[in-house]
């Protein structure tokens, strides 16, 4: 079975490949490190693909070869059938002769053909035969020839063939479960056997098999990947557990492992190459042997075919001769007188010569006993002549008359009839030739045709044989003994065969006569075969011998076939195997290169790891060094500074003082630098921990602003802060670090911004910027609009100078989009400046410690360049990110995020409220109008005013605001609009309008001037003279200096708008205190605020003074007084007042009597040294209005007085 043969061959290859793949897997499993694994997976992939490719290639080549084989088979069968048809014609001629066996034969043929079809259809081919059909055909052909009369045997054969086919089939079916077992056992094997399996079953489903292979490989890959993932995770865990201890070990193991895997790969490659070479060798051997086998088979087929045909033809002729013998016996011996004479015989034989194309002549010799010789000779009129003594008698062109009369013998066999062609042998005694005599004797004894050994025929000089049949004169039983036969012999019919012409003719009929050389031998004498046909033998390698059976059991003939030419070199297998070899080598080369690359990369990686470890160690060492050295410097430095401080306290002259101060400042700078370095080292060592304290982010901004406002004013830079209204009042985090980061950034911005532009700090919630389309915040919106470069020059920045695009500064933040927890608040702080910007090439390293944009920077601006690095570390600690956008000459915008927790608003509020709330409540109902061209600046102003609790309107110009302003005035709602804030920029445009309005107001309703909204000018920096000038114009009430922040505003309003003077001026106040010092101090304080103070030293005096009617506006009373303490005095005063009030309300006394006051209630403020809750309550209980601490604190005093007077009025 050619197919199976091939497949088994390829199976061997497959199993080897499978083995290889398993090896690959092993190496894969062995691998540990993920990189090598990846490489191995890749390698495995490549291997897999190569194997599939090669398997595909081989199978497809086999397939095509198989197909071509099949087609070749078909071709040959076709030709054979043609030949067979040819021979069938001859068979039919036979049939016409033996009409009796006709029917049976045809049946036999039909059955054979049927069987043939069956066998070809069901079983492909038995193993080890290329084209079995031919073989079978040939065999059966022989069967047919042999068992023409015994057809049942053929039937048996058919049965056996069919029976044979069943075991084969079961073998095939047994084979398949075996295969499927394999499939189940070996996963990879399945994959690789798939094609084989499919090939066995159905070649067309090879594609499906390949798909399976791919799926298998993918699954395997995934599986491996999963395994590896788990392994690496485990490893990671392990590493996490003991990072330091394990690192070295892992490195070591990795090192060892990579080497081992490298060796594995090398081995694998070598194996692969060996397999490639071996495979190509096998392929070559297999294909060439296949070709040789086919050649042998072809030769055998052709030879057998020729032999069979020759035999057939000969047999046919023999039968004819036999028939002739019967004819002679019938008509010559069976009739008296004989119906046959020489003439008739000659004519008949001549005319029926076509039936015996191979015989050169037929002759009949009569058996003549010596006793009858004379009679016979007389009867025929000639003497019996002897053949030549020599064997060459027949060969020579002899004339019978010249021959001698036969010597006296027992028996003669003179030829009486002869075909015309051999009429010269009439009267020659056949018994005289040795060969002929033997022949005749054998023929009559056996009763069958007998052949002579080849000899040279008379005349034709060709080699020939003589066939002799005995003719019996009586009916013989089939089991007659030879003696009986001899007895019954009447004569002998001989026919001479011209063998070379016979063979020539035969060969002529067949195709491809050129390719083979045929020799026919008589091998009766095995030691000295006689060549019957054929030329000299040239050894061309292959020889096929087919036996020839000419019907004479004593004579043996053989046909030797040879190819005319030696086989050519098998180019196809050479090409294929060389191709496979080349492919293998190429793949090997590729793999080798890959392996080398892998090894190199692994080596590099290892080196990198080592370098990394060393670098990290160096970094740690550096940090430690810095920390140590900084500390060591700091200690003596403190001494230096202290000594300098003391030196400055001593008596120094000017220049000495100057030197000392310089030294002190320098020392302080040095200390601050060292502190920064220490701080950085501390962060890097991971020793810094964040606090979790509730704080106000807005307050942090204010602090930063107050810290830098002076510096900003000096440089003429506008400094502003802004917090979005979504930023909560209280968050929990580390306020110090938060402030530090902002201060760092602002400090940098101020440092690198020269005398123009602004520095602008803003806080937003990170989620505010998530969706750019959904922005409500004014600052962010302006920033968004600012993206367009062409709009840069417009007025939508704080100072009108172009700035970097803040949106870009947080573009790269990854966590920005992730944060969405309700508990966590992510604040986004942006610091924007209009400074010199950061050069593009330096932007990548600005967060590196000690790295400033360029070395000239530190010369020009000073600083260590550590600030941003610290900021970055702090931001990282806060779980945030820091980023920036910077354009040289335009400015930088830094952004960072920080994660904080939501704080309870209460937690901080007490302190906050204590400090600011009174003022905030003061401003709560007030309304302000901000007029500013720049929206951002207006937003900043509004933010600050809103923090005070005001409601704020913003308008870009007064013109537009004018209408609503006048409107409010007209409807006497002016009280609501408490103030107008105008930016200095807008001032020049607006002042005329404002002036006009103001004038109008003043002229119109003079008494209402107080109620007219106060007008403030917002200015950044103004000289004193300018200020006075503006004030003197009388339009504005005052000038507010920027930067604004809460405490500044409060301070400002307290001083300028609601200051104590305003409250206390011209108020008559009674101070009651027994302590002269306290009295004096209180008097001094109150007088300073413009109050008219009267002092008394005791409760009684106070009662006397405060007996209505009196003209005091308030009373400050000490609580602890001898004789009568403050509580008692207050109670008595209230009692008195109540009496008077009752009188007035009861109509007993007129209000005129008590100073035209309808209700008496003098505000009494306690003065106490211990401001505790209990004393506070006691104060309230006994009718006091409020209390102030003693000694006075201005804020508290102010608050108390405000409350009291508001209440009073």
């Amino acid at each position, binding site marked *: 079975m050619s197919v199976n043969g091939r497949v088994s061959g390829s199976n061997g290859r497959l199993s080897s490949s499978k083995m290889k793949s398993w090896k690959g897997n092993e190496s894969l499993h062995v691998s540990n490190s993920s990189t090598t694994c990846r490489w191995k997976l890749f390698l495995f992939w490549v291997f897999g693909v190569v194997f599939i490719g090669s398997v595909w290639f081989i199978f497809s080549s086999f397939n095509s070869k198989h197909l071509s084989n099949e087609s070749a088979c078909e071709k040959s069968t076709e030709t054979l059938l043609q030949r067979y048809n040819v021979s069938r014609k001859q068979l039919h001629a036979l049939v016409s002769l033996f009409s009796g066996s006709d029917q049976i034969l045809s049946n036999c043929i039909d059955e054979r053909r049927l069987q043939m079809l069956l066998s070809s259809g069901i079983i492909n081919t038995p193993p080890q035969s290329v084209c079995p059909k031919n073989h079978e055909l040939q065999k059966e052909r022989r069967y047919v020839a042999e068992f023409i009369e015994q057809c049942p045997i053929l039937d048996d054969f058919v049965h056996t063939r069919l029976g044979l086919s069943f075991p084969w089939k079961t073998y095939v079916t047994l084979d398949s479960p075996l295969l499927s077992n394999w499939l189940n056992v070996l996963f990879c094997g399945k994959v690789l056997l798939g094609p084989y399996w499919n090939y066995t079953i159905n070649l067309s489903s090879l594609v499906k098999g390949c798909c399976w292979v791919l799926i298998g490989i993918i699954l395997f890959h995934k599986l491996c990947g999963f395994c590896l993932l788990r392994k690496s995770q485990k490893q990671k865990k392990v590493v996490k557990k003991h990072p330091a201890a394990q690192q070295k070990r892992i490195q070591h193991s990795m090192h060892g492992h990579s080497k081992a895997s490298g060796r594995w790969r090398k081995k694998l490659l070598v194996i692969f190459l060996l397999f490639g070479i071996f495979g190509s060798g096998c392929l070559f051997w297999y294909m060439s042997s296949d070709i040789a086998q086919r050649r042998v088979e072809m030769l055998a087929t052709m030879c057998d075919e020729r032999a069979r045909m020759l035999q057939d033809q000969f047999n046919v002729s023999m039968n004819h001769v036999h028939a002739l013998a019967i004819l002679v016996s019938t008509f010559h011996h069976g009739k008296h007188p004989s119906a046959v004479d020489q003439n008739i015989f000659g004519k008949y034989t001549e005319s029926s010569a076509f039936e015996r194309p191979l015989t050169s002549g037929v002759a009949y010799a009569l058996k003549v006993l010596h006793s009858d010789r004379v009679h016979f000779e007389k009867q025929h009129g000639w003497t019996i002549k002897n053949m030549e003594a020599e064997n060459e008698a027949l060969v020579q062109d002899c004339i019978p008359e010249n021959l001698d009369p036969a010597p006296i013998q027992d028996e003669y066999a003179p030829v009486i009839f002869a075909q015309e062609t051999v009429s010269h042998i009439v009267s020659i005694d056949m018994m005289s030739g040795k060969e002929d005599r033997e022949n005749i004797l054998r023929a009559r004894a056996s009763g069958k045709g007998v052949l002579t050994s080849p000899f040279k025929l008379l005349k034709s000089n060709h080699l020939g044989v003589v066939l002799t049949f005995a003719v019996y004169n009586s009916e013989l039983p089939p089991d007659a003994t030879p003696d009986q036969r001899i007895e019954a012999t009447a004569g002998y019919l001989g026919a001479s065969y011209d063998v070379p012409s016979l063979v020539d003719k035969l060969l002529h009929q067949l195709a491809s006569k050129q390719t083979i050389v045929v020799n026919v031998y008589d091998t009766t004498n095995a030691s000295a075969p006689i060549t019957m046909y054929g030329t000299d033998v040239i050894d061309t390698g292959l020889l096929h011998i087919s036996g020839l059976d000419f019907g004479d059991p004593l004579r043996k003939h053989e046909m030797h076939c040879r190819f005319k030419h030696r086989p050519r070199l098998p180019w196809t297998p050479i090409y294929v195997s060389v191709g496979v070899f080349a492919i293998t080598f190429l793949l090997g080369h590729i793999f080798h290169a890959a392996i080398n690359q892998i090894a190199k990369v692994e080596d590099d990686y290892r080196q990198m790891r080592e370098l990394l470890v060393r670098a990290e160690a160096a970094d740690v060492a550096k940090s430690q060094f810095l920390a140590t050295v900084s500390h060591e410097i700091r200690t003596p430095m403190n001494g230096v500074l202290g000594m300098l401080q003391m030196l400055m*306290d001593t008596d120094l002259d000017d220049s000495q003082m100057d030197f000392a101060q310089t030294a002190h400042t320098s020392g302080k700078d040095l200390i601050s630098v060292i502190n920064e370095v220490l701080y950085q080292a501390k962060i890097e060592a991971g020793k810094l921990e964040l606090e979790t304290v509730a704080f106000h982010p807005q307050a942090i901004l204010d602090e930063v602003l107050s810290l830098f406002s002076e510096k900003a004013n000096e440089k003429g830079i506008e400094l502003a802060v802004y917090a979005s209204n979504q930023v909560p009042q209280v968050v929990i985090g580390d306020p110090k670090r938060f402030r530090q980061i902002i201060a760092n950034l602002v400090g940098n911005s101020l440092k690198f911004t020269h005398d123009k532009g602004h520095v602008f700090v803003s806080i937003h919630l990170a989620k505010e910027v998530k969706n750019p389309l959904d922005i409500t915040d004014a600052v962010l919106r302006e920033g968004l609009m600012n993206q367009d470069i062409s709009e840069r020059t417009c007025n939508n920045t704080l100072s009108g100078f172009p700035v970097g695009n803040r949106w870009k500064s947080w573009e790269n933040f990854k966590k920005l989009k992730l944060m969405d927890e309700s508990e966590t608040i992510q604040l986004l702080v942006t610091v924007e400046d209009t400074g010199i910007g950061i050069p593009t090439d330096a932007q990548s390293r600005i967060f590196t410690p000690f790295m400033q944009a360029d070395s000239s920077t530190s010369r020009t601006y000073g600083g260590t360049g550590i600030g941003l690095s610290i900021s970055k570390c702090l931001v990282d600690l806060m779980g945030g990110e820091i980023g920036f956008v910077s354009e040289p000459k335009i400015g930088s915008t830094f952004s960072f995020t920080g994660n904080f927790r939501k704080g309870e608003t209460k937690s901080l509020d007490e302190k906050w409220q204590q400090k600011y709330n009174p003022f905030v409540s003061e401003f709560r109902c007030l309304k302000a109008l901000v007029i500013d061209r720049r929206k951002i600046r207006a937003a900043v102003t509004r933010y600050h005013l809103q923090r005070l609790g005001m409601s704020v309107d913003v308008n870009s110009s007064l013109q537009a605001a004018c209408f609503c302003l006048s409107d409010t005035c007209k409807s006497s709602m002016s009280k609501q609009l408490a103030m107008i804030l105008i930016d200095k920029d807008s001032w020049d445009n607006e002042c005329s309008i404002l002036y006009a309005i103001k004038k109008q107001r003043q002229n119109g309703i003079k008494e209402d001037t107080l109620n007219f909204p106060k007008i403030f000018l917002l200015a950044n920096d103004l000289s004193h003279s300018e200020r006075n000038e503006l004030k003197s114009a009388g339009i504005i009430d005052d000038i507010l200096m920027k930067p604004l922040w809460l405490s500044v505003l409060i301070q400002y309003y307290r001083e300028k708008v609601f200051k104590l003077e305003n409250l206390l001026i011209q108020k008559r106040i009674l101070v009651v205190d*027994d*302590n*002269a*010092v*306290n009295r*004096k*101090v209180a008097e*001094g*304080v109150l*007088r*300073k605020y413009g109050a008219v103070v009267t002092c008394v030293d005791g409760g009684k005096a106070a009662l006397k003074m405060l007996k209505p009617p009196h003209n005091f506006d308030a009373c400050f009373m*000490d609580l*602890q007084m*001898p004789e009568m303490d403050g509580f008692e005095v207050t109670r008595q005063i209230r009692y008195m007042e109540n009496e008077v009030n009752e009188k007035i309300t009861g109509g007993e006394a007129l209000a005129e009597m008590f100073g035209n006051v309808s209700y008496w209630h003098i505000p009494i403020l306690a003065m106490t*040294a211990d401001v505790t809750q209990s004393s506070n309550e006691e104060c309230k209980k006994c009718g006091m209005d409020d209390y102030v601490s*003693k*000694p*006075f604190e201005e804020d508290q005093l102010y608050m108390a007085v405000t409350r009291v007077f508001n209440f009073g009025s």
Partner: protein
Amino acid sequence: MLGFGADLLWADMNRLLAFLFHQGVLDEQFLQLQQLQDHTSPNFVSEVVNIYFHESEKLLNNLRSLLMEREFSDYKKIEIHLNQFIGSSSSIGAKRVTSVCIAFRAASEQDNRAGCLRALEMLEHEYCYLKNKLHELFQIEQQRALAAGVRYPMQHQ
């Protein structure tokens, strides 16, 4: 060299003040007191301090006589005196005197006569020290005022 002496005196005064602050003798209340001094009341501080000295000496005498009594029992009176003392001291910002007074008060609350006596001694000592220093300060201020007032420089002693 106009105003040179005044400047020097100003520096002297500041130094003295800084020293007193440093020692904790005075606190910022004294500065507030100084701020109350303006054109309308040029001698406000010295006035207040003089009243304080006057009052304090009275109180100290009272305290001493109270503590020196053979059958001493009136701690209440001592406390009243001390409260007065504390009030006035804290008003002028005499920090150390105030704290000694508080200690004194605590001792008197515990009826600790020995402690009271010790505290009284300390109080007297502190008071004397304060008085001396303040006198020194006022002297310098006077000189400064004089120096600022004259047109020609004056060598300071």
